[in-house]
């Protein structure tokens, strides 16, 4: 066991699965860098260096640099998955889904269903999401509610290095299309990650704190925000439960209801746009299945319904923060 960053954990998952199974290939823009040129090879390893170092192990046959066309990347990866490979395709920023969404929504997500269960599409799509990098409104969105909305796609949001490795290995081994969403701010966070290969099953949410007074439900980056708020509250004499959803599809409804019923006071923290997001969905779930356990109205912390601002002070104001989560919690404590 050793301390690894989120970026290293993802790299190690890819390395170990590619060593284990020769059908695993990586497809994307600059996933190595330098293909077809006389320039430096493996110059990039993806735009933030996550796949760097894999080229020397597996060569250009399995680390495939593509032209700048997400449509072709997703088409190629889906076809490869249908015909026996286990591709890990990189959709650099999730914001670019617009140009390849038909491949994902109407083709990949539907194959198993349309072919009567005879076709499998073991495709993993890795993508970056989220704000905080001053990258403006076309490179800072979350958009996971849009994928969660579509049956046939599994949606994974790892919140820490241990989960990132285990959930990515599970994604690659899974026989259905999976969108694996990495928050940009998490790449340099670190945690204990076993050197050995392991997988975390989908649909198993994780309690990162346990308490009696209030429940935070979080996903991806917002988990750490809630953990910090819970730790501060503890010092003030209030104990909080934090539930990390880990996967949005499948969704661990049992754990959500269990976490909600433990305290009856719920704050859901979701960085995506506030209409039809994960917070509203979970709020509806709790209201339908566990209304009697509620001791206060369900609170949600999400950004306002606007594009992500480019101005740094505005972006800071826009994103869920410890201060916002804390003040929201205090409204119902």
């Amino acid at each position, binding site marked *: *066991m050793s301390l690894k960053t989120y970026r290293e954990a993802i790299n190690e998952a890819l390395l170990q699965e590619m060593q284990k199974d020769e059908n695993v290939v990586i497809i994307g823009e600059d996933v190595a860098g330098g293909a077809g040129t006389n320039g430096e090879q493996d110059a990039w390893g993806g735009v933030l260096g996550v796949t760097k170092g894999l080229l020397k192990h597996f060569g250009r046959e399995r680390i495939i640099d593509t032209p700048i066309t997400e449509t072709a990347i997703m088409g190629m990866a889906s076809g490869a998955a249908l015909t026996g490979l286990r591709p890990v395709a990189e959709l650099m920023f999730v914001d670019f889904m617009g140009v390849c969404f038909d491949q994902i929504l109407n083709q990949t997500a539907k194959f198993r269903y349309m072919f009567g269960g005879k076709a499998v599409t073991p495709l993993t799509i890795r993508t970056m999401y989220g704000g905080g990098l001053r990258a403006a409104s076309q490179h800072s969105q979350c958009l996971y509610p849009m994928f969660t909305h579509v049956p046939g796609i599994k949606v994974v949001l790892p919140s820490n290095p*241990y989960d990132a490795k*285990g959930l990515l290995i599970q994604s690659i081994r899974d026989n259905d299309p999976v969108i694996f969403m990495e928050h940009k701010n998490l790449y340099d966070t670190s945690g204990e990650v*076993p050197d*050995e*290969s*392991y*997988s*975390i*099953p989908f649909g*198993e949410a*994780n*309690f990162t704190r*346990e308490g009696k007074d209030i429940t935070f439900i979080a996903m991806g980056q917002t988990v750490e925000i809630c953990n910090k708020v819970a730790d501060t509250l503890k010092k003030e*004499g209030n104990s909080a439960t934090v539930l990390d959803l880990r996967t949005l599809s499948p969704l661990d409804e*049992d754990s959500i209801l269990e976490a909600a019923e433990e305290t009856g006071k719920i704050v859901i923290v979701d960085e995506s746009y506030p209409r039809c997001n994960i917070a509203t969905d979970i709020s509806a779930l709790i209201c339908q299945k566990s209304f009697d356990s509620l001791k206060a109205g369900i609170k949600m912390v999400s950004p306002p319904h606007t594009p992500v601002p480019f101005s740094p002070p505005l972006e800071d104001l826009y994103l869920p923060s410890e201060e916002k989560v804390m003040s929201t919690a205090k409204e119902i404590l």
Partner: protein
Amino acid sequence: MSSNLKPITMPKWGLSMKEGTILKWFKSNGENISKGEILLEIETEKVVNEMESPEDGKILKICTNEGDAAPVGSLIAVCGINDNSEKEIDEFINEFNLNFVSDAKTQENDQDNNEKITISDIEINFVKNVNTNIHNLLFIHGFGGDLNNWMFNENELSKNYNTYALDLPGHGLSEKIIHKPSLEDISYLINKFCEKNNLDTINIVGHSFGAGIAIKTAFLNKELVKTLTLISPIGLGKEIDSNYLSNFINSDSRKDLKKEIEKLYFNTDIITRDMVNEVLKYLRIDNVKETLEIIKNEIINQEEQKNNLIEEINSLNIPISVIWGEDDKIIPSNQSKVLVENINTVIEKECGHMAHIEKPSTVNEVITSTIIG
């Protein structure tokens, strides 16, 4: 400074413990305490347990209150004999805190002291705490456990013994593979382990499946093994909760696994979320389930215990103690009835399958008395 003042410090339960949170003080300022009396309840990342008083005397000042966390080794209370003045006590606290260096603050201590050794092509992980003591002590955990199971024993007993604790193949940080899983094969591995560590004699403490390995090792290596302390051993009867083994292997969720882990204890409050998560993390590692399945088939056969070690244990001419929780739900404690008289049998009340975690002071006392006679 008054010499009769003594510090009571946060204990270190296991290698990874950095700090503990005090859940409850059973004594308050001014109350008399005696050595071995339950003093307080502490929660670590892995376990909730009671701490016994290390001293006789009187609690003069509690320094860490209920609900507060304190690093390992830090001052949580001051104990004394007389009614020392406030000033004396404050000076004592100041001086202690001035000299106190937290483990968590020193970077090098972040590295654990796990060591690896290759035996029969399998990489075995172990920890050792070797000093100038005469006796060597080896801990062997049970099915699905690891060397951290000895968190209340290994550290404590290392004051008087050279202690070794290993992870069996397929467990803990050892390689997740097992070529030959029989008790004979694993006792061969234990023998080699001692050889490679230059141990001419060894006292073995084994739990459950690990106790079975200990009996076999003693039977096959009479020169090597000097004493045995066995906790809820296999091999003394047919009955065993065979469902526990299968369910443990096949637990995929926290909820399922918690149900299984609860069967191990009399007092299930001892189980923390992190304790369950640690086991879940272990079960998720590639090849763990396959390896455990192989070992399971060495323990049970058609829902009954496969090994019969009664003749072997009763024929041994060394000091042996057997400790069994009266409420053991995995292997019933009445199986100890087959043991011959000269084997010291301790049936512990309000205790399940994990006496070394639930009743560590009893277990540590029995280990000591078995070794020193």
